[in-house]
């Protein structure tokens, strides 16, 4: 198996894309789960505030999602642009 320069760069950028999205998904996954878990708890305590609590949960999760989206962007850059 002989490896040329462009092949080496392309190959490692594919591996890098996998690593970026794979590791990048760990944090938002756990964080958003924690937020939604607390939202369920809060709705359990005060079911009449369900609308407010769900809205807050979604805003919080959206912020927590951002790092996952950064990973996705970097992965897509590695796949298609670089």
């Amino acid at each position, binding site marked *: *198996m002989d490896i040329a320069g462009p092949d080496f760069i392309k190959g490692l950028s594919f591996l890098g894309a996998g690593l970026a999205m794979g590791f*990048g*998904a760990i944090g938002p996954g*756990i964080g*958003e789960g924690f937020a939604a878990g607390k939202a369920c708890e809060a709705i*359990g305590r005060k*079911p009449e505030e369900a609308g407010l609590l769900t809205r807050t949960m979604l805003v919080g*999760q959206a912020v927590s999602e951002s790092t996952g989206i950064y990973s996705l962007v970097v992965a897509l850059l590695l*796949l298609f642009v670089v």
Partner: protein
Amino acid sequence: MLNSIAYITASSYLAAGLTIGLGAIGAALGEGYAAGLANESISYKPKMSGELLKNMLVGQAIAESAAIFALVVAILLLFAQPSSGSPIVAWSAIGAGLAMGLAAIGSGIGAGSPAGKACLAIVHQPSEKSRIMTTMLVGSAVCQTPAIFGMVISFLLMFMDFSSAPLYPAGAALLGAGLATGLAAIGSGLGSGLPAGAACLGIARQPKSGDKTMTTMLVGSAVCQTPAIFGIVISFLLIFMDFSSVPPYPGWAALLGAGLATGLAAIGSGVGNGFTAMEAVSGTARNPECNSETNRVMLIGMSVGQSTAIYGFLVSLLLVFTKMEPSTSLTSCLRLLGAGISSGFGGIGPGIGLGIVAASAVRWVARRPSSTVALIRTMLVGMAVTESTAIYALIVALLLLFVL
């Protein structure tokens, strides 16, 4: 130049070290946890120290079994004669070591939970001693299932004759087979310990509803085993496949990636489902009347929680069964390995996160059955958002597989 016997012997020694090094982690942690809770229990009622010590030792003995499996495999790797002089045996030895070593981690830690919680339970409800001990024994026995899966795969890898298989791609496939079951077993072992511990405490709190608690525990622990079963299925596919049907390059990367995808993704689902099952068992013990609601929400939560393991399993199946063009470029190999790594690691976090959401929902359904509908709705919305990063990882994997 190294001759192949030296290569195989060296790899077997490395594998033996990995097996017992990894395999010792779980049992020691689980037993330490049990001993800690036993001491806490004795401090409440020092007069019961004899009973509690006995219960601790029985619980620890079961947690120890995972490490003993690993010790047996390590000794076999050290002293068993290799089945042939083919270099493929070196890779199957390392796969065998990883399967057993990694699988013992989850079962060891998992079995510590019922052993420790049973001591606390006995001190709070001494009249239910025998029932608590039975629950502990059943619960810790279920925790050992993933370690047994690991041992089965490791025996297959050690004693089957692969000498006629080509080094590429079979070497990587056998390593992947070890990783798939070993990694997947971590989550299931850890996860199935949590409901077992909660059941011991639940029976102490509400001895009258002991049967319902036990049933919920068994259902929960059984569903927690699913990710380990995905892992063992992929291992069997990788061990018994026809290696000549796969081009050596980039086949090796696809088959190693297949092992990593299912193994890693299963860790998250196993642990997450354990959280959900634990809350369902505690909830059933706290409020036996709404047992059926609790169980229903638990099963909804667990089936959504399973999705990340299923994404990993799907990518593994695609990697094993998609026809690929022979190509010796590094790009074509790392493309396939990257797909496996993306969906594998990408499943860990969302799997745990989905479990946390479902666990909270189940806890509050048991406390306030009147708001079950609102809780299920929020749980599903929260889970959908939590799922998103796993879906990104799946998309990246599918792009790597089919577009690039």
